[in-house]
């Protein structure tokens, strides 16, 4: 294995460790559900939901009281056998779609979802046209040097002959 490979591997491992460290869900909320399946769904849900008071945090990361109460509500709904969709739609019915960090796709916000793709396509088309135009310029500019002087010489002769013809007329 080359040194470069080793370095890349180290960088990946470090990035992975940092990502893992950046999810301190249990540090904030020690209330675990005993069923690991429910706990996994609970963790997914609270990472997808926005704290309604401190609005740039997820429910998982927020330490304000209302976030704790919402987490407790989600736990009790999970224990009552509610599906993820039922829990999400309940919370949306109380706090609007604002509570979802990943809003639903709908006709109203379709343009928001589609605009990055449209912009990307426009960018690709523009870039392609610019690159093609430049490539054409470069191609016409890389003719052998002798030919270049030849063109100049020819131009010069033409001008000279033009001058002559003018004199003739």
């Amino acid at each position, binding site marked *: 294995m080359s040194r470069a490979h080793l370095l890349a591997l180290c960088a990946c491992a470090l990035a992975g460790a940092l990502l893992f460290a950046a999810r301190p869900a249990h540090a904030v909320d020690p209330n675990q559900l005993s069923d690991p399946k429910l706990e996994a769904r609970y963790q997914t849900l609270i990472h997808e939901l926005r704290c*309604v*008071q401190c*609005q740039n945090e997820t429910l998982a990361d927020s330490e304000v*009281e*209302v976030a704790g*109460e*919402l987490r*407790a*509500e989600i736990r009790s709904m999970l224990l009552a056998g509610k599906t993820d969709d039922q829990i999400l739609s309940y919370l*949306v*019915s*109380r*706090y*609007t779609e*604002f509570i979802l960090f990943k809003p639903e796709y709908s006709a109203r916000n379709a343009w928001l979802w589609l605009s990055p793709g449209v912009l990307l396509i426009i960018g690709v088309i523009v870039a392609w046209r610019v690159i093609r135009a430049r490539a054409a310029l470069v191609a016409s500019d890389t003719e052998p040097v002798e030919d270049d002087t030849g063109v100049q010489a020819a131009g010069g002769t033409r001008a000279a002959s033009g001058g002559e013809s003018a004199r003739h007329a």
Partner: protein
Amino acid sequence: MSPLPHPTKFVIPLAAFVLIAVVLAIGVKHSPEVGVIHSPLIGKQAPSWELPVLDAKRTFGSKDLKGRWYVLNVWGTWCETCRLEHRELLAIGRESAVPIIGIDWRDDDAQADAYLNQLGNPYNTVTTDHEGRVAIDWGVYGAPETFLVNPDGVVVYKQIGEMTPEVWQKEFLTRLPRELMERTS
């Protein structure tokens, strides 16, 4: 001297600029107040709720309010803005005939008693929500929040933040039937 670019060369960048300017202008004009979540319950049936009454061994809730207009105020002794609006709530209690129901949110009963004894009690009934589950059902995310509910049990309006005389006159009185706007007796 290089010739001027063809006029059509300006068209696409200019159109793009105008488009972006229009989109941003609409965004700025319609941007919601920072941090305000408008209640999705407006125009919908209020959640049915039942909570213990402060200092009483009974409960109170939507069943007791069937067929009546009521104002539901979510407050707490820990909430500074609630203290600010308390005078206005007392005035509303004095001047209008609509009942004010309080939900004392995640609070200590003894502190709530002391608070109401000291500042006066504007509420017809004070209920206590220690765990905040009824508050979540109402979509409460801060205090104070004040709801107006009609006799069909439909949420007509929600005030997020301080109740002021202006808010009361403009948003609540205009929605109430004439006979409840003022206390006649």
